[in-house]
């Protein structure tokens, strides 16, 4: 276990080399499903299920830092967790990359 600059615990979830630009990747951790993305603005991580109908967000189409859920094309903002036409948000996990490893603040 390593620690974030402000003191939170960080968990390694993947190698940066596992991710490819623009395509999401699923990771399962402590019973959670988390979608990882390598965007032009850096790594983003959110809960993998779309709150609308449970669609797999890691399989969505990424444009900038927004991903469109593959089931009904609702767009999810990876920075805020806001979901288009939906009152619920997805949880966002701050991500850092150290020595080629992707670490999340859970």
């Amino acid at each position: 276990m390593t620690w974030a600059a402000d003191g939170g615990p960080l968990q390694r979830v993947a190698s940066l080399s596992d991710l490819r630009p623009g395509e999401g990747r699923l990771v399962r951790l402590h019973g959670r499903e988390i979608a990882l993305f390598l965007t032009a603005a850096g790594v983003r991580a959110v809960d993998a299920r779309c709150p609308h109908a449970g669609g797999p967000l890691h399989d969505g189409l990424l444009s900038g830092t927004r991903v469109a859920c593959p089931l009904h094309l609702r767009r999810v903002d990876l920075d805020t967790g806001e979901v288009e036409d939906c009152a619920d948000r997805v949880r966002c996990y701050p991500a850092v990359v150290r020595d080629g490893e992707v670490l999340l603040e859970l």
Partner: protein
Amino acid sequence: MVAASLLDQLVRRDAPWEVTVFGDEPWLPYDRIALSGVLAGERSPDDLALREPEWYERHGIEVRTGCHVLALDASRRRLRTPADDFDFDACVLATGSRPFVPPLPGADLDGVTTFRTLDDVRAMLRRAAAGRRAVVIGGGLLGLEAARGLLARGLEVTVLHLGDRLMERQLDQGAGALLRSELEHLGLRVVLPAATVRIEGDVRVEAVALRDGTSLPAELVVVCAGIRPNADLAAAAGLTVGRGVRVDDRLATSAPCVFAVGECAEHGGRTYGLVAPLYEQAAVLARRLAGDGAAAFAALETATRLKVAGVDVFAGGRTVAEAGDQEVLLRDDANGVYKKLVLRDEAVVGVALVGDLSPMAAAGDALARNAKVADRLGLLGVGRTEDAPDGADLPDEAVVCGCNGVTKAAILAAIGREDGCATRACVARCTRASSSCGSCAPVVDGLLRLSGAGGMPGVPPAPPVCACVPLPRAALRERVLTADLRSVGAVLRAFGDGIGCHRCRPALSYYLDVWWCGQHVEEPASRHINDRVHANVQCDGTFSVVPRIRGGVTSPAELRRIADVAERYGVPAVKITGGQRIDLLGVRKRDLPAVWADLGMPSGHAYTKAIRTVKSCVGTDWCRFGVGNSTDVAVRLERLLEGLYTPHKVKLGVTGCPRNCAEVTVKDLGIVAITGGWELYVGGAAGMTVRKGDLLCTVATAEEALQEAAIAIQHYREEAEYLERLYHFVPRVGVAAFRAATAEAPAQRRHELLERFRRSRAAAGDPWRAVPAADPGRFAEAVP
């Protein structure tokens, strides 16, 4: 254009004049209103001519193009031209106007242009091809049309406007603000109030400087700061000239036998810039020249319609209420709709519509007639249920085509006469209605429908690919091929916002595949998940797998393999599909490569917009009624087309006799065996829409049927918009046009279509073999 309208009317009235036309520009009279369409790449400069050369010849009209009249001698009734002197009995000045260019430093730099003539448009296009940023000075009608065209050409466009709202001569604050926000949403930048003080640059324009110190870099500057009547010739001849050439109600100038119409004329202290009142002037003068001494021109409330990259605007009369006026206002910000009536003593004196022009015909007519209106909300479309205006509720004298001043009665007369018009194109030829801006086309179509004349829906202007890539598909194709761009990212960087969205990136992925005949650079990140993993995502996040079973013909060994795979991978559901295939549902993503390998069958492409299935009956092999070997042809058809991506999914069928057991007349493309040949149907549907396909052609042999199918599919691949089903494409363009472009196209075009088809087909592989080997990691989860 006004002169051309006058000629039209004189010819129609058989007026006994020998007419000679003198024009500065090197072309025959052409449609200036359509120039913005040329700029946007929607129209070709070649079809701007208002009349063909033969028309002038046939009616004995001599046209001297490129001939600048040097002087007018009204007392001797003589014109001086560089070639000779010309004596006349009557002279009509229709000299139009010229753009006003404010005296700004740098206005003469290379790259600064106005927007008035075909030459201006050509100059703009040359600069647009070389540059990236354009500034339009002036946010009036003309400026916004120019901005729209340049936006469609992929430039970054900024509109500078001196006033506090766009189009302030036509729009009130609310409509102007909504228009602005809609335009900004489409990618246009609007700065107002913006006072330009200087255009900067050495030889070529480099930037535009504003009074507040801002400097906007630009390679092209278009000045649309208003127009000035061309009255110099009249002034030099001693005619009374104010802002324009002064005319009375009979359009006579201060000199006997000299008349003036159009933008150069000043009537009652007003000059006009919109086309409807000017055509009214032409009509009045034609009547007068044909001997009707009572014909008189009266000032008209003018209305204008504008479409800027998808934003519809219609405005007329006074849209800002004066003291004592009443307003009716409907506003729906979320949907970008704004509708306003201004009334005086219950009569309509002003109309402003943004976003929804369905009330345009009725409200415009009420405005023109200054009509008293009881149901004001009804006039704005509240409570109306029909979605297409059909003109049924318009009075006969209502002007349907504001551009050309054509009434409902005139259109009905053209439809109703012997051999009357049956199509909008014919109405346009005979009356000119709908031939300019096209906004009245739905009403013309409605009148055709009402008259039982059919009313083929015409082709509306091409929409942009997306707000992220604001170019119509055809214009984008040309630029992409010229610039040799082969990936979605490269196209978005060159002609889009650099990012794109989940709508345009799959569309661009498809277009690049077709335009380059498969020689593009595939970018999985721009594809939906189905196209990244070549399986159909299900509601629980698992995938379905449909192997290709050509023509629906399988074997015991194949069925055994499918059964083994289903058991080995714990596939929870196995189902026969509507297209005679077998669907394995609930496969985990990580199992997909192994499932494909164990099946040993090619992809059925059931997850994507591509050639799907060819359904068949058992034909002459087994059926006692069969007249053609439908099973064999179905398998061959599927082999011929499989692996090709298409704008939307394509379902096909081949049936062995007209009993049509394979239900092929409700397929996108269907082939029916008949005695002695084969029939091809296109555009059938039995899904969300039910539609019987149109007969494309009848051929003698199976080989010919296969070739016609390939040509038809390639035409659809190249010309339809992404996500447009064949059953939408065929009725949109009309089956006659579809046939003319395929089965009945010239040999050269058919050859070229087949050539591109073959290249695309040769580049299409089986993704179930290619992808896992190239990219094994795509199917796995990350490991913490």
